[in-house]
């Protein structure tokens, strides 16, 4: 066992952390006000290898060999410390690109990769409550129903849709897209979409295998978990700094036992969630049988951790935590999407366990 990063990982973490601390954090505050990401985001992040990191090198991307979800988790944690909304945009291409690279037809690869390699976006939508009506006509699919809210959907050329028994890539052209700026991840280019007999060509259907769909969702869960932990840690960092400056009743509030404990407990949960997310990513990279279960549990714990840490950070800031001049109220808003996206993770686990008593292999 070894909890140390190797040199490549260390290099990536250091680079991304610098980017996150120097640029993303500041950009994020502005982007939250305006509801739009800065223009410079794409260029700067592309330099660091975002957006096309899951596209195989032989097809023009940057992926050499097999994809590392561990590296992605480490990276996602760092960028989310800067801004959850921008982090969502930096990570949204991975699931579509990796799924198409793994299970897609040459046509699907050609179309999607061309879009992404030219600065386009793609994103993942999970039909977690099975509300889409999907019918097959010939090999094509016809999809009716509502998508989202989904981050990056407002700017995406394609959306990877995981339904109960199908995984397919849908071109957004022809969808009735409504861009929105919700309270959390405001600048993440959210949208909802109405699909009416939206046609998905046979060549864009990636799989009917539940195991494949489960795997793609596990990728997303680990990434969400890692980013949630990043937001939680950002909240705790702010709270620690503030608590050592703010004086009440004649001493820094950071010396009051109740506030020390509030922060310390949130931090312990956060650190545990981070380990669980990294462990899950490591298991995904090795395709271990318990990987999906770990990914799901990591998201459960990280969701709890980020909700708690951000609320407690606001509490430690007191009145200042409630106003936009200070950074933590944004974090409390941003925290929600980590639990809401793809639906309540605990509910999913309960239904899965009910459906098939302990079918999902447990990890210990």
């Amino acid at each position, binding site marked *: 066992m070894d909890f140390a990063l190797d040199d490549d990982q260390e290099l990536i973490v250091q680079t991304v952390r610098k980017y996150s601390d120097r640029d993303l954090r500041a950009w994020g505050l502005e982007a939250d006000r305006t509801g739009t990401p800065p223009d410079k985001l794409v260029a700067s992040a592309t330099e660091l290898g975002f957006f096309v990191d899951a596209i195989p090198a032989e097809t023009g991307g940057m992926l050499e060999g097999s994809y590392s979800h561990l590296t992605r988790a480490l990276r996602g944690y760092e960028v989310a410390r800067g801004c959850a909304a921008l982090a969502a945009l930096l990570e949204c291409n991975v699931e579509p690109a990796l799924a198409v690279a793994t299970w897609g037809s040459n046509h699907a690869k050609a179309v999607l990769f061309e879009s992404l390699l030219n600065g386009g976006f793609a994103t993942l939508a999970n039909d977690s409550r099975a509300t889409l009506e999907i019918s097959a006509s010939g090999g094509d699919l016809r999809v009716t129903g509502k998508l989202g809210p989904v981050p990056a959907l407002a700017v995406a050329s394609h959306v990877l849709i995981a339904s109960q028994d199908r995984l397919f890539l849908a071109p957004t052209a022809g969808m009735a897209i409504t861009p929105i700026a919700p309270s959390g991840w405001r600048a993440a280019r959210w949208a909802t979409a109405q699909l009416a007999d939206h046609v998905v060509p046979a060549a864009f259907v990636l799989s009917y295998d539940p195991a494949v769909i489960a795997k793609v969702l596990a990728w997303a869960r680990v990434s969400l978990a890692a980013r949630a932990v990043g937001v939680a840690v950002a909240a705790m960092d702010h709270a620690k700094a503030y608590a050592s400056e703010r004086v009440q009743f004649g001493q820094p509030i950071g010396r009051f036992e*109740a506030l020390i404990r509030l922060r310390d407990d949130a931090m312990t949960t956060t650190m545990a969630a981070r380990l669980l997310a990294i462990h899950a990513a490591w298991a995904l990279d090795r395709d271990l049988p318990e990987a999906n279960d770990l990914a799901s549990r990591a998201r459960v714990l990280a969701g709890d951790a980020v909700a708690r840490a951000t609320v407690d950070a606001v509490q430690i800031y*007191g009145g200042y935590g409630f106003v936009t001049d200070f950074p933590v109220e944004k974090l409390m808003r941003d925290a929600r999407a980590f*639990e809401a996206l793809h639906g309540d993770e605990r509910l999913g686990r309960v239904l899965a366990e009910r459906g098939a008593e302990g079918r999902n292999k447990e990890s210990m």
Partner: protein
Amino acid sequence: MDLFHDNPLLSGVRQMLGSFAKNSMRPIAAKHDRDESMPWDLMKMAQPFLSQTAALDGRKKLTGIEDDPDPKKAKTNARIAVVGSEELGYGCAGIALALAGSGLAASPVARMGTDEQKAEFKKLMSGLDEHGHVKVAAMALSEPATGSDISGLKTLALPDGDHFVIRGSKQWITNGQSAAVYVVWANTDPSAGRAGVRGFIVARGAPGLVPGKKETKLGIRASETAQVHFEDVRVHKDMMLGSAAATEAATGLSDTKKMLDSTRPAVGSQAVGIARAAYEFLLERVRSSSLHGTPMASHQHIMFELAEMQMEITASRMLAHRAAWLADHHLDNVAEASMAKAHGARTAQLVTNRAMVLLGEEALEPDHPVEKWYRDAKIYDIFEGTGQIQRRIIAKHLTGQNPT
């Protein structure tokens, strides 16, 4: 007459404000949350029964009944406030605070003001302003350095003949930008420490009175919060509240603290209203929706949390009523008031948080009410004494010591 026994007066208040909440507050809540704007039209409409100067009018307007003046007889104010606050919080916490904001300034005037001062205050509050808005008042006490700790105000009011010259900056001031009249607290004699602090009635437009930046807030956005700067504002000594005697009692600050004690049950109750709103929204969704083809109501995962929510809401409500009942019966309720406030705030945060999680992606929609209630709920654990301050009060009640 309490939570156990229904009572016509309280149920009347509950019904009246309950339908006001549903029919008048809910429809405009999302808009004012989005725009961060005051609900001026509603405030005007509500003026007859939720007057901005209610503290001076007594509650006749709301209930049509006066308290028995006999101080030994039980009152009903505290319970009326608790019952009403739950309904208003159920409607929209931000709007509720906009409706009640002036009361913070009116009540010290009502308690300590001379007839002349009361008359002046009422005069300044009468009629409509240039925008046709009802007039509002601002209680200007907090300062950047004072949060939970209200001692050590930096604003000065130095005597100069028949006047005082006020200099300093105030923060977290409800109605700070729009107020027609300010009740500002400043120290007239720094050497006397807290004992030198006095409240002054200052009219909008007084030279040197500069409304400052308006805060953009996480929640309760229909209630205005702003800074106010006093740059050598001259106020006649007749507009100073309380006596000149350099005693801490004379400041009225202790009364102000007492006032906070007496409002805590109602504040906790307002939080209960938010929790109830989120709980009912989720229950309605559960009754009307299905999950993978099965009724949501058939899932323990969801229903047991609803049961939990109902349990917590009921418990918080009873703590608030209990604290109010004690106050109305002139019994010590310091610890109970803090329990009511702390428990209500916790329940509001807990219920809105869990409701969002159980609703899933739906809660990500812009203007989703439960997401708004989640943001609104947080302030109840912060203002009027943080959750930590409430527990400190309860703890001190147990041992006589202030834990740190």
